[in-house]
């Protein structure tokens, strides 16, 4: 069931009234059933994988919880009778056992993800190298697996860090892992927030309902009017790397930037809006990312939950891990600067390699991730240079013009990196990017734009859409836009909502006239 389907709207239309009419104490059960229906619609294989995740994470979290309890009891009993050294030894013994449970569970869950993501690639490779039968070509990611695996693992690690008690009721854990709005495009969430919110009773609130409806409508608006429209041209450009070179690559970069933004933020708006419809607050995933002044700022504002997850569960643990610290110490004699940089450099590179791998099994994604990491490290190293420049020209660098330049530079830079996302091989991507500087074909570009599968009216509508998205982002800087609409009264909110729905119905790309396309970001 995709968001942009009648089935999904019907599903919501049935769920929401039932959800608010049943007694509060079984509300969560209704939601769990809804999740089951949603998962079931996507196919039995996905349901099987999800069940494995729920079962293993539940068992592991309960096991770890029991170990923590025993560890505390044992240590408390030892306090009077044993030395500090002995107690430490006991603590480490328990921690080792906890870690063993944790790792076993991670192996299973990341194993599924790995096999699904890389199975086809490994199968092909093994066929080429060892002349075995090719296998795994029919493996495909099941719905939401990248998102809920990460959320579940986060939960388990939090239990092991003693930040959470393990949920005792497996159905309640299942409710968190399978929460349906998050299975299409995320975001990745935490049990502490979403999991707890899912379990508390929710009373219908008309104002919140209208606010949620506005957000969902806006999500569909961005997706159906802007993203699905631009996607046609983007696919045409990416599909013929030999033809579309030079200036076309810049066009592709910009269209893809707009398309991806509209698609991904639109999908997240729908997911968070549906959560709000059910009274569940879900973490934000974007904070006007294209207004960032540097790539590292951009990554704090784009796909926030993924970045936070990597930071919390990979980047920091890795950079303070024993081997990393040992490595850092061992390089001290080369110089303090080097030694201090070892953890941060290695962790950054590794996290970005993993982020790339999370996005796709293609080598292009790995390179894309690594380049992101390198750009971030380089800009960190260049900070003193910038600081000197800022000190030298304080008036210029404080101006809106300079900030605007920094924003444009960042968008261009990240769009350049994203080229890797568009092509199937790294060579194609680099060659396309190179042609931007060697092939001067603006006449051809102007003549070729109308033949990318979009009519003049499509470009006009997409442009209006982009301008509206820009205006909304600008307005958001002064406060939540829906709140401001709602402050003008119910009638004003309903008007805005109907206007959004009406324009989607008229200008959206849906139905038989258009190919039904899917969210760009849901293949992860």
């Amino acid at each position, binding site marked *: 069931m995709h968001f942009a389907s*009648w089935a999904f709207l019907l599903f919501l239309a049935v769920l929401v009234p039932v959800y608010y009419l049943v007694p509060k104490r079984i509300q969560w059960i209704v939601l769990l059933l809804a999740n089951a229906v949603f998962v079931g619609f996507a196919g039995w294989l996905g349901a099987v994988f999800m069940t494995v995740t729920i079962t293993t994470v539940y068992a592991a979290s309960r096991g770890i919880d029991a170990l923590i309890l025993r560890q505390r009891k044992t240590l408390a009993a030892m306090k009077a009778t044993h030395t500090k050294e002995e107690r430490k030894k006991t603590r480490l013994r328990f921690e080792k056992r906890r870690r063993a449970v944790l790792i076993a569970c991670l192996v299973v869950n990341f194993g599924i993800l790995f096999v699904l993501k890389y199975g086809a690639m490994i199968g092909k490779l093994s066929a080429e190298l060892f002349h075995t039968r090719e296998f795994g070509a029919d493996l495909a990611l099941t719905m939401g697996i990248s998102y809920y695996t990460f959320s579940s693992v986060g939960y388990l690690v939090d239990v092991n860090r003693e930040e959470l008690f393990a949920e005792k009721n497996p159905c309640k854990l299942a409710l968190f892992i399978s929460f349906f709005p998050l299975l299409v495009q995320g975001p990745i969430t935490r049990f502490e927030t979403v999991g707890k919110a899912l379990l508390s009773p929710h009373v219908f609130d008309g104002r919140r309902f209208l606010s949620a409806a506005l957000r969902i409508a806006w999500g569909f608006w961005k997706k159906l009017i802007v993203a699905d429209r631009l996607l046609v041209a983007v696919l045409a450009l990416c599909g013929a790397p030999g033809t579309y070179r030079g200036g076309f690559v810049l066009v592709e970069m910009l269209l893809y930037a707009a398309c991806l933004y509209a698609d991904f933020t639109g999908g997240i708006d729908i997911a968070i809006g549906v959560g709000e419809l059910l009274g569940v607050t879900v973490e934000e995933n974007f904070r006007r990312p294209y207004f960032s002044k540097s790539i590292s700022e951009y990554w704090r504002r784009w796909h926030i939950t993924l970045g936070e997850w990597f930071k919390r569960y990979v980047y920091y643990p890795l950079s303070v891990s024993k081997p990393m610290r040992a490595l850092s110490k061992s390089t001290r004699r080369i110089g303090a600067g080097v030694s201090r940089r070892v953890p941060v450099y290695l962790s950054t590179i590794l996290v970005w390699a993993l982020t790339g791998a999370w996005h796709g099994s293609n080598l292009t994604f790995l390179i894309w991730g690594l380049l992101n990491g390198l750009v971030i490290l380089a800009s960190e190293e260049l900070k003193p240079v910038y600081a000197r420049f800022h000190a030298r020209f304080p008036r210029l660098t404080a101006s809106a013009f300079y900030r605007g330049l920094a924003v444009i530079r960042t968008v261009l830079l990240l769009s350049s990196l994203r080229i890797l996302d568009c092509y199937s091989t790294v060579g194609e991507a680099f060659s396309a990017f190179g042609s931007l500087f060697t092939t001067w074909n603006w006449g051809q570009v102007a003549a070729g734009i109308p033949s990318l599968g979009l*009519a003049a*009216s499509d470009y006009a509508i997409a442009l209006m859409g982009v301008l509206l998205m820009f205006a909304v982002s600008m307005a958001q800087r002064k406060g939540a836009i829906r709140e401001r609409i709602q402050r003008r*009264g*119910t*009638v004003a909110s*309903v*008007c805005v909502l*109907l206007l959004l*729905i*009406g324009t989607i*119905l*008229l*200008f*959206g*790309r*849906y*139905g*038989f*006239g*258009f190919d*039904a396309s899917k969210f760009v970001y849901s293949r992860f």
Partner: protein
Amino acid sequence: MRKKLLTIGGVLLCCIVFFGALYALSRLVAPKYREALIEGHLTGEYYDEETDHDVLFVGDCEVFEHFSPVVLYNEYGITSFIRGGAQQLVWHSYYMLLDALETETPKVVVFNVLALKYGAPQSEAYNRLNLDGMRWGGAKIGAIRASMTDGEDFLSYVFPLLRYHDRFDKLTAEDWRYWFSDGEPVSFKGYIMHTGVKPATKTPTPPALSDPRLPETSMAWLEKLAALCEEHGITLVLIKSPSIEPYWYPEWDAEIASFAKSRGLRYYNMMDGSETGVDLSTDTYDQGQHLNVIGAEKLTRWFGGILKEEFGLRDHRGEAAYDADYAALSVRYEAEKQRLSEGME
């Protein structure tokens, strides 16, 4: 309290304006089938009929361009209507008849068998062409469900805006002209007139049939059509109208003939010009695929004789209501013939 009422009133007003605007837009973007693709207008024209019909033709272009109800009345006094449409498949025809049975029961239903070659829905465009004009009811719902191709959804038949919203940048003068008015009919009781002459020159070279039998699904629908007629005491007559393309295989012809025999139905293959008088070197406007008005009138005269003699249909001439109806139609019919043939020169 007052404020609450104001809010409710405001929201209601918003909704009324919203749905009103959607309705208007929906009408605007829906194809009008008045000047281009006029076949799409045929289905709806049946509902404007003021008199009933002894004969209903159902089928594809080989009925709505090959028989002239005007001639059938003026020469034999037989009242008729053609419920045909472009590539109207057999289940379309079944539901067209079911739909007509809501308001009248003809004595004879004539079905052209060419469409039986298609056992599955062919194209979304033809579905819309034939079904959009149908009035809502069990027949339309059944027809839609039987016809939908992959990717179509039922809701877009209920709300045409969902289907045609992509036409907002392709609107023509026709769309604005017929936004809220339907205008004159495009047909003469379901007959669409062509006056050109473009003789059939080539002999068809059909590829060999991989399966000599007509598709099972379409034959099953033919069974249903026969059963429906039987149930209502209607005589079903099967015909194969003259044309050289699409090719009508002898194997198919034999299958239909044996089907007709087993059900006690009459089947007329009209492909032989020496019997009907239709001459595809003069009586076709597109090289033998469809008849022009000369051919249609010849064929109608010949078939009218059969209808009168074999099925004992009454001569309604002299009955005031029919006379008035057909007199007015004849005037329009002759004028159209004149207009079209002048346009030719």
